[in-house]
């Protein structure tokens, strides 16, 4: 069995098409749990999940917390500053401490790329990357794939355009790995200042204007523009960005007539996405949020096998 167990989920590259599809299938069953009057199953009773968030996050942390609780795991949230200098404790010591408490799964959100991999090397627990710096956010990509599959009925053969700050986006990186693995044709687009210098590095096509990327797209995935990118010679202004690169109803007309619009949230309305598009009939933003809990239930389930049961 290659797809039923996951030692860690640090990057989409820890998955293959088969194991990713297995996670999406499991999430279907867990979605149904969330829609019941009693939203709880005993699957992970007696297991301990520690949500270790070194970076502020409301939606991802809540999503992981609900996922653990709906599986009956004991869930603890730890919030800490990313910087070891202000925190007074090194990440090494934090990991050792959590490990000594016999966590089964440690969910890590951290501002430094590679921090979950660092944690994984130093604990017996399974580690799930809940977003690390500008590296990856694999559960976001899984919930995006899940949402696409439910709304479009398939992933293979779809044309997906990811638009915005590609260079700094962990969501873009994870999706650029996962969606092609599942058969989609992915391209990215954004101003050149927000694309990787080596545009081929992510393995997908890239454009410096959004229009060619939108042409005939089945899925339009918007990324959040961080306000702090303004004025450091990356963006002249948010106003300029909205006019040149934002997703307006007019620009969206270039996409396929039945295209869906996604956003990992939180949205900057009027910047990367116009209000009427965000709330329009093509928007599946809230379906993504619902899918987030189901997908994370599937990930926690597959990561919380007893170490003895794990294949090495």
């Amino acid at each position: 069995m290659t797809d039923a167990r996951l030692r860690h989920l640090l990057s989409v590259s820890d998955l293959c098409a088969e194991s990713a599809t297995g996670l999406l299938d499991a999430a279907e069953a867990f979605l149904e749990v969330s829609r019941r009057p009693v939203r709880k199953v005993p699957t992970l009773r007696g297991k301990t999940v520690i949500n270790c968030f070194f970076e502020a996050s409301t939606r991802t942390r809540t999503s992981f917390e609900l996922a653990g609780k709906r599986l009956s795991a004991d869930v603890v949230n730890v919030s800490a500053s990313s910087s070891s200098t202000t925190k007074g404790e090194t990440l090494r010591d934090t990991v050792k401490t959590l490990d000594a408490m016999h966590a089964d799964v440690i969910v890590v959100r951290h501002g430094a790329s590679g921090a979950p991999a660092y944690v994984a090397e130093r604990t017996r627990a399974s580690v799930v990357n809940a977003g690390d710096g500008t590296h990856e956010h694999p559960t976001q990509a899984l919930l995006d794939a899940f949402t696409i599959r439910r709304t479009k009925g398939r992933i293979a053969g779809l044309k997906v355009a990811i638009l915005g700050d590609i260079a700094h986006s962990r969501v873009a990186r994870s999706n650029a790995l996962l969606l092609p693995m599942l058969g989609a044709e992915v391209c990215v687009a954004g101003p050149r200042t927000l694309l990787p210098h080596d545009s081929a590095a992510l393995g997908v096509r890239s454009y410096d204007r959004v229009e060619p990327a939108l042409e005939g797209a089945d899925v339009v995935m918007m990324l959040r523009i961080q306000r702090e990118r303004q004025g450091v010679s990356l963006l002249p202004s948010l106003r300029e960005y909205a006019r040149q690169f934002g997703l307006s109803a007019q620009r969206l007309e270039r996409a396929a007539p039945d295209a869906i619009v996604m956003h990992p949230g939180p949205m900057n309305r009027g910047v990367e996405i116009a209000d009427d598009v965000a709330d329009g009939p093509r928007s599946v933003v809230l379906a993504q949020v619902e899918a987030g809990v189901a997908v994370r239930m599937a990930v926690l389930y597959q990561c919380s096998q007893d170490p003895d049961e794990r294949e090495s």
Partner: protein
Amino acid sequence: MTEPELLVLRGGRVFDPALELDAIADVVIERGRLTHVGAGAGSGLAPSARVRVVDVTGHWLLPAFVDLHAHLREPGQEYKEDIASGLGAAAAGGYAHVCVMPNTRPVNDTRAVTELMRARAAEVGGPTLHPIAAITVGQRGQDLTEMGELREAGAVGVSDDGVCVMNAQVMRRALEYAKTFDLVVIQHAEDHDLTAGAQMHEGAVSARLGLGGWPRVAEDVIVARDVLLAEYVGARYHVAHVSTLGAVRILREAKSRGLPVTAEVTPHHLLLTDAAVIGYDTACKVNPPLREAADLAALRAALADGTIDAIATDHAPHSSLEKDCEFAEASPGMMGLEPCFALLLGLVGQEGITLTRLVDAMSTRPARIAGIEPPRLKVGALAELTVVDPAALWTPAHSALASKARNTPFLEHELRGRIRATFARGQLVLDRLGSAG
């Protein structure tokens, strides 16, 4: 135990390309100087209380090495390394001379710090320490240091190592002023505006790992600018740890016009690429960062043809506090003195790199750049030589390094080429020889 007055190294390969010497010969060292070099020169001497005879058949006797670029962390960060442990590492690596960078705490920008380092080294013994003083006060890139006095106190060059002199006017004045005192100006070539937030080389690997990129062009623009400035004011200029193919191209062009421009390269930039960072290995976080295969090829070709004059270790010891952490939090740097020769011996015979060029790049050329009398294997010379067993396998083991630090990706990797002995200042500062066989 009293030192024998006479040491005979019998039957080794005596190799000093500057003397066009490559012969199986005996070397006799008496009271710190070479008194005989030649076949059978030591044959009449039998071991006794005052004569030590060592059979070094199969070993090479080379002019001792000279490092242009090391960080020994004293004063100020002795938990990482100090002058005693750092010079111990140098001796273990075959070095008779080590030039140390000024980024200590406090910065070496005054006579007091320069003298303290030299006094400490004299107490310790071992290889000779040569301070490189800062170009600007506090390495802040603004006011020139008192280079005349620093020269008198023993500084052999100036550098704001780790910090690039960004202001072109300050750099011009530094080149002009240092020339008066015949101090080489050593630049850490990095346009800091282009590398804000950088964690590794900017390329496909950094894009995938989500780590901030340090683009090649940040080195190239500074090297190009400085070559123009040095040419304009007619001063010597030395580039520290060259890492890019672009910088190599600029240097080659400058040398082809006869400009007094020199450069060094580190073992890690000759051997590793940015792919080594995959997995977020902080031991491979260095500044300038590990580049790509094309840079590696350009650096090796430049070493082979002399465009890059010298090999420098950029020995940068760190403790686990600085390295066992998130990649973004880790300090850049790799220790390098002890394994340097063994790491590079493997390159001999590849891409035009000869043993002659390797020895030249590790000894004679760096000595000339720093204004140090180059070690020579000739009668009458001070004993500054390194005995190498080129076939011996050894492992830079966690438990057996002279340095306090362990931050190298080559830790526990088996290497070929073992330093058996180092003579510095006429003294035997590393002795793994045993006695006559």
